[in-house]
């Protein structure tokens, strides 16, 4: 029955969606105008512009200055990636003028995508009110431009879906994660891309991913990112288990990091691992791709959207409201008790698998259909509540 339905509904190339085609050939499922601070010092100017102009989003962050080398590069790569994300129609970058992560550099890199990009520098313009006034004028033009773009028929191979879990319980690995794995396999079959992140939650399950590596280089890179994550804690003499699994994971029945990891990696499905990306890198392959991010969900999702992810499917057993400023986040509950308790935040209930009312395959297909509805414009609960958590992963200290 499942197969019949699949063949008729999914398998015939009918899983197209209506998206915004960008000048670089990528396809967005949302149409945001982004007001992007290059440095924490520009945050409030960006917020003021976004408050004034409907259809814009600012993404305040704590970074962009007093950072060195690879750490500053990672912040810059993240901001550029978010600006280039196909869900973004146009970008206004606001810099202070003396920061490490230079705003005109960010603007010119984002402009390589062909979308409209402008840059304002507070020190050059002469303070907050003048920059806000000029920014509001530019943002208004950008929204006017974006509002005239139309959704067009697009193929599913343009989709990159990030798969995330947060606030897991011991049901996550038995219901929501394997169901999302079914979704991942279905989207890959349609030519799409899945990014599985959260390296901390591959520790103890890396042998499963390694077995599916497409080649030796990918195999070695999987082992390398897992080992370096594990060694980061061990070299400090620390126990990852004091923070991950988190206290709520233990209360939810998860006993060890290995147990959490074995459940976590199921979200990626059963496909070959094509590529391993650094944090905030863009995939060059389609199919299943890994990205090295921490288990911290806001940081992980920020890495995913910088990598071009248009949508994120997010499983939870304890209940998690997190969203993303530019990507819709679909929340999947691992148990019915949570689903009923936090229905305001949950989009799909995978708890029916635990209860025995639905199969993993059925819920996986349901998530797959939801992905396409959301791609076509259906809002997720995290979007409706305005959840826009944004956190750039730091890999060096502030100086």
């Amino acid at each position: 029955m499942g197969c019949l339905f699949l063949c008729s509904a999914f398998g015939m190339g009918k899983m197209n969606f209506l998206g915004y085609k960008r000048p670089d050939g990528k396809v967005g499922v949302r149409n945001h105008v982004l007001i992007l601070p290059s440095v924490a010092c520009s945050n409030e100017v960006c917020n003021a512009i976004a408050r004034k102009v409907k259809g814009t989003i600012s993404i305040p962050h704590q970074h962009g200055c007093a950072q060195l080398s690879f750490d500053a590069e990672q912040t810059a790569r993240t901001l550029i990636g978010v600006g280039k994300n196909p869900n973004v129609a146009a970008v206004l970058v606001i810099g202070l003028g003396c920061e490490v992560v230079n705003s005109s550099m960010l603007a010119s890199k984002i402009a390589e995508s062909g979308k409209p990009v402008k840059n304002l520098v507070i020190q050059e313009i002469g303070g907050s009110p003048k920059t806000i006034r000029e920014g509001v004028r530019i943002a208004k033009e950008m929204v006017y431009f974006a509002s005239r773009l139309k959704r067009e028929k697009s193929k599913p191979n343009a989709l990159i879906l990030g798969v995330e879990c947060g606030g897991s319980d011991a049901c996550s690995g038995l219901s929501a994660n394997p169901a999302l794995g079914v979704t991942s396999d279905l989207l890959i079959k349609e030519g799409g891309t899945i990014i599985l992140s959260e390296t901390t939650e591959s520790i103890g399950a890396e042998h499963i991913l390694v077995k599916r590596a497409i080649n030796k280089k990918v195999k070695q890179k999987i082992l390398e990112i897992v080992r370096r994550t594990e060694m980061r804690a061990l070299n400090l003499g620390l126990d990852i288990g004091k923070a991950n699994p988190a206290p709520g994971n233990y209360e939810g029945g998860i006993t060890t990091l290995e147990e959490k990891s074995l459940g976590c990696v199921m979200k990626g499905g059963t496909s070959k691992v094509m590529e391993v990306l650094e944090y905030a890198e863009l995939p060059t392959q389609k199919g299943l791709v890994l990205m090295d991010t921490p288990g911290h969900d806001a940081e992980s999702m920020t890495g995913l959207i910088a990598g071009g992810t248009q949508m994120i499917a997010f499983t939870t057993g304890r209940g998690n409201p997190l969203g993303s400023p530019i990507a819709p986040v679909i929340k999947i509950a691992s148990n019915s008790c949570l689903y009923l308790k936090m229905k305001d935040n949950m989009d799909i209930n995978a708890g029916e698998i635990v209860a025995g009312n639905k199969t993993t395959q059925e819920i996986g297909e349901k998530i797959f259909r939801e992905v396409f509805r959301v791609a076509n414009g259906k809002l997720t609960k995290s979007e409706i509540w305005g959840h826009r958590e944004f956190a750039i992963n730091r890999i060096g200290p502030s100086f």
Partner: protein
Amino acid sequence: MNEKYFDKVILSHAKDNVATAKSAISSGTFLTFSKDRRIIAIEEIPFAHKIALRRIPRDGAVIKYGERIGRAIREIKPGELVHIHNVVGERGRSEGTSLKRRAHRA
């Protein structure tokens, strides 16, 4: 999928020595797996927590999803709750001398 759904628990893999409670199981409850295989919960097992299906010796592997999820720090009897009071993980732990062995197994 390898999971098997029983009345009160989910067994994620045939090799497992623990099963996950589908709802809270009170002490004294019988769990039936087949005509000649059943165990009794010897303490309360909260929802989503694990119950031992077999005796697990001290230092023995705890198996879920058909994989090793940790090591018993004391003997665990069939029907006992299996959690952080009687199991430790072996990865990402500073005292985990087993790191090298485990990390290279893959």
